[in-house]
């Protein structure tokens, strides 16, 4: 695989108005550019990144991040990471599912655990927790309920808050 700097140069040349920040083994992408970049990497030589091996959410307290690992089955190369940072108040990220079907369940899981809303996802609902659950349990400010208290009114307020 080409070095990251070369890929970045190539991408910024081909996609007008794109600004990438190298970060780890990939790039920090603005959410409005994510689909363009992913489609470019998927469809064009020499990348042919046709496979999402992992997609997950991260809570950095100040912001949430959605990370996608792209690999190329055709070239046997990868990964290139695409990271999108969003605020906790407006956690909307474009969905990669229309491009990579394999991202569907992983985006549902990131939505379930972190509350990141993937716009354009065909079926965005909770995958592990039940539908009635109101919290996002892997967010840093989530506090689990006290199972020794029978009634909700008796719960201290800090135990109830968290999540949404």
């Amino acid at each position, binding site marked *: 695989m080409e070095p990251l700097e070369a890929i970045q140069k190539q991408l910024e040349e081909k996609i007008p108005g794109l600004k990438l920040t190298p970060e780890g083994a990939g790039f920090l992408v603005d959410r409005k550019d994510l689909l363009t970049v992913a489609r470019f990497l998927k469809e064009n030589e020499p990348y042919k990144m046709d496979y999402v091996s992992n997609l997950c959410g991260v809570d950095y307290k100040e912001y949430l991040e959605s990370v996608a690992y792209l690999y190329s089955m055709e070239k046997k190369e990868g990964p290139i990471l695409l990271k999108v940072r969003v605020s906790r108040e407006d956690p909307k990220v474009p969905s990669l599912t229309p491009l990579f079907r394999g991202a569907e369940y992983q985006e549902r899981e990131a939505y379930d655990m972190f509350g990141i809303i993937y716009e354009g996802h065909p079926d965005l609902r909770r995958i592990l927790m039940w539908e*009635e659950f109101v919290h996002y*349990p892997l967010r840093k400010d*989530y506090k*689990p*309920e006290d199972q*020794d208290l*029978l009634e909700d009114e008796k719960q201290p307020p800090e135990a*109830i808050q968290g999540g949404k």
Partner: protein
Amino acid sequence: MTIDEGLKSELQKQGIFLTSLQDLYNWGRRSSIWPMQFGLACCAIEMIATACARYDIARFGAELFRASPRQADLMIVAGTVTKKMTPQIVRLYNQMAEPKYVITMGACSISGGPFREGYNVLQGLDRYLPIDVHIPGCPPRPEALLEGIMKLQKKIDEQKLWQLEWYQKGIRREFPVPAFGPHGLVPRYNAEVFDPLKGNIGTVKPEKEPEFSHGTA
């Protein structure tokens, strides 16, 4: 009425087998405890090992793992009980025919184990069901499961016919199935079987023998 143990063994030497209906009844039940085929996590692997030739649960008459709760006497809860799984477990327990027993196998089903502080794991199944034997371990070895079954057999041996729960009037056959709530399960525990300050308070049994005694033969 109880039969004197000395007299019993003396008669036995003379070729007379004397027993009480209660002993016969308990012997029958203790010798064929059919467990439900029901594994939730890694403890189930140990349960499978217990059922196989090396440890051979068949020696205790408990080898017939049934795939239906209707045909099972014993529920071995082998593994982590998540909140999402709990309503199904309570429902399965309700579907089992009396007499029915529950063994919690491993730290997770007893108290939540290493996942206790998590958002998705129930802190012990005794919050919703009356448990007969707890087998600690992570996971317990097959020997421990066999010991637990022997403990259960001992418990069955000591049951009095007139005190058996399932012959009482107003017996609770349905344990309430918890529902999925906004923060967790609703209610968080069944106050009739569990008290968080005291642990499992168990089911209440009648203190004295009722008048219509049909206890012993």
